[in-house]
C-alpha cells in the first residue's frame, strides 16, 4: 500500500455543538492504481484530502506513507508534517476550487509545480548561477514537452506560455493544473473533483491525462461525483458516508450496491 489511513477522527466545534466530520475513517490506497472516493456533499472527502496533504491538523489517527524510492524505506507518518514537506515527499494535489496562480504566467505556474527547490535560498543565484540557469532551462523544456504530450504538437498552450493564469478559462486552468502535476516528482496525486465545471471535451482530455499519470507510475486518489467518469477510470471505489468509508470495491460493485444506490445515486 502506498498510503494507509487508520482511524482518522476529526470534530469541528466543541461541547454540545460538536459534530464529527470524520469518524474513525480507514482507507488503503494501493500503489499504481486509481482509487476514487465518492460520497454525498459534506461526507468529509475534501477534509480527508486536507488532512493527507497537511492543511488540516487537530485530528486523531494515523496516516502512513510508503515513501517510494530505490531503497525500501519504512513508512513515514504524515500527521505532524507541514503541507510543503508532504508535497516534497511526493504527494501532489489538485484543489477543487483553485486553478492556476492567477498573476503568474503559465510557464511560471508549471515551473513552480516542479516541487524542485533549487535556488530557493534567496542568494543562491549569486553563487551557483550557471547551474541554476541550466535547471531553469530544463524546467522550461519539460513544461513544453508535457504540454506537447498532453495536447498535441503545436497546441495553443505552447504559444501561451507567457499568458497569465487568470487569462485562461476555469476549465483550461483545471487542465493545465493537472498538466502541472506532471512537472513534479510526485508518486501520489490527490485530485479533488477534476471534472467539476469542465465541458465534456475537456473531461475526455482529463481522463487521458489521468491514465497517462498512472502509466507513468503514479498513484491517483480522486474525489469525483461524475459516476460515468469514475466507472471508466477507477480501479477501486470507496464510498464515504457519515465520516467513514462504508464500502470499498470495484466501480461496478459499488454502483450496484443497494445502499449506495439509495442514499447517494438516488436510484430505487
Amino acid at each position: 500500500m502506498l498510503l494507509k489511513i487508520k482511524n482518522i477522527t476529526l470534530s469541528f466545534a466543541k461541547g454540545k455543538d460538536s459534530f464529527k466530520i470524520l469518524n474513525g475513517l480507514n482507507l488503503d490506497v494501493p500503489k499504481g492504481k486509481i482509487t476514487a472516493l465518492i460520497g454525498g456533499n459534506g461526507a468529509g472527502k475534501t477534509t480527508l484530502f486536507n488532512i493527507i496533504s497537511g492543511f488540516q491538523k487537530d485530528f486523531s489517527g494515523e496516516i502512513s506513507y510508503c515513501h517510494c524510492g530505490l531503497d525500501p524505506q519504512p513508512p513515514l507518518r504524515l500527521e505532524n508534517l507541514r503541507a510543503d514537506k508532504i508535497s516534497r515527499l511526493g504527494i501532489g494535489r489538485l484543489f477543487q476550487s483553485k486553478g492556476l496562480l492567477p498573476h503568474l504566467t503559465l510557464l511560471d505556474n508549471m515551473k513552480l509545480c516542479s516541487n524542485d527547490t533549487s535556488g530557493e535560498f534567496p542568494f543562491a543565484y549569486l553563487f551557483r548561477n550557471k547551474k541554476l540557469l541550466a535547471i531553469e532551462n530544463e524546467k522550461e523544456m519539460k513544461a513544453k514537452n508535457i504540454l506537447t504530450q498532453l495536447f498535441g504538437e503545436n497546441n495553443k498552450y505552447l504559444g501561451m506560455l507567457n499568458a497569465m493564469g487568470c487569462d485562461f478559462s476555469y476549465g483550461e486552468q483545471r487542465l493545465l493544473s493537472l498538466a502541472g502535476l506532471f512537472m513534479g516528482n510526485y508518486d501520489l496525486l490527490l485530485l479533488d473533483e477534476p471534472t467539476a465545471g469542465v465541458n465534456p471535451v475537456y473531461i475526455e482530455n482529463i481522463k487521458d491525462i489521468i491514465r497517462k499519470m498512472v502509466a507513468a507510475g503514479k498513484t491517483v486518489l480522486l474525489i469525483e461525483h461524475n459516476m460515468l467518469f469514475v466507472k471508466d477510470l477507477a480501479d477501486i471505489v470507496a464510498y464515504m458516508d457519515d465520516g467513514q468509508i462504508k464500502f470499498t470495491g470495484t466501480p461496478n460493485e459499488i454502483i450496484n450496491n443497494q445502499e449506495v444506490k439509495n442514499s447517494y445515486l438516488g436510484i430505487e
Partner: protein
Amino acid sequence: MFLQFIINGIITGVLYSLSAIGFALVYNTTRIFHIAVAALYVAGAYIFYFAFHTLEFPLWAAGILALLFTAILSILTEISVYRPLYRKKSSLNTAMIASIGIMTILINGIALLFGNETKVLDNSIQQVFTFGEIIVTLPQMGQAIIGIILIAALFAFLGFSNFGLEVRALCNDAALFEISGFNVKTTRLIVFALSGVFLAAGSCLTAYDIGMDPHIGMPVLINAMVAMIIGGTGRIRACIVGGLLLGILQALVVFQFSANWQNAITFLVLLLFLFFKPQGIFGSKKRLV
C-alpha cells in the same frame, strides 16, 4: 526654479518609493495592511540616531546597524503577532488591528526612551553641489544615490532569483504555494526582513537630512500607501513609479501653491485613482468573478 522643484520632487519620490516598497512587500505577499510600518520606520531612524550620536559609530556603520535592527524588529512582528494570527486563520482585519497595536506600543516606547522633541543628527551647514541653476545638498545626493542602488539591488534580487518568483506565487495563493513544496513561513520571514531594510533605509536617509521625532511614521505610511495604490498593488515596480509621481506632484504643489496643500493633493490624487483607475498605473483589467 521649476527644474529645482522637479529634482527635489524626484529625490523625495525616491524616499517615498523606499517606504512604499517596505509597505508593499508585506502587503502584496500577505495582504496584511501593515500599519506597523509607521513604527518600524521611526524605530529605524532612532536606532540610526542612537548608534551615531550616543554610541558614536561612523555614519555608515550606524546606517547598517539601523537596517539590521529594523529587519530584526520587522521579523519579530511577524513571529510574535502576525504568524500566530495566520496560524489561527484570523481575518486580515484582525491582523490590521494587531498592527495598529504594534505601532502604538512601539511609537510610545520610542517616545518614552528618547522623548517627543525633534532630534537632529547633523546640524552643521551641508555641502552643496551646483549643476547650473540646480542645487543639490549632500544629504539629498546620498538619498538619491543610496535609494537608487537599493531599489536596483531589490530588482536584481527579485528578478533574477527563484525567490522573486516564490514571493509572487505566495502573493497569489498561499495554499497553492505550499502544495508546490514551498515553505510559507520562511518566505514570509524573508519578506518581512526585506521590508524592514527598506523602511530603515528610507527613514535613515530622511532623518539624516531633516531630523526625526517619534511621530514621523504616520505621514510616511500614508504616502507609501498612496504611492503603492496609484502605482498599482501587486507590483513592486509600481511603488517606484507611484513614489516618484507623488514626490514630483507634492514638489509642484509647493512650487505653485504652498506646502500646506501637500496632504490635500495627496489624498485628492488617491481619490481620483480609486475612482477612475483603481487598479493603478501598472494594473490591468482582469476577470471580475
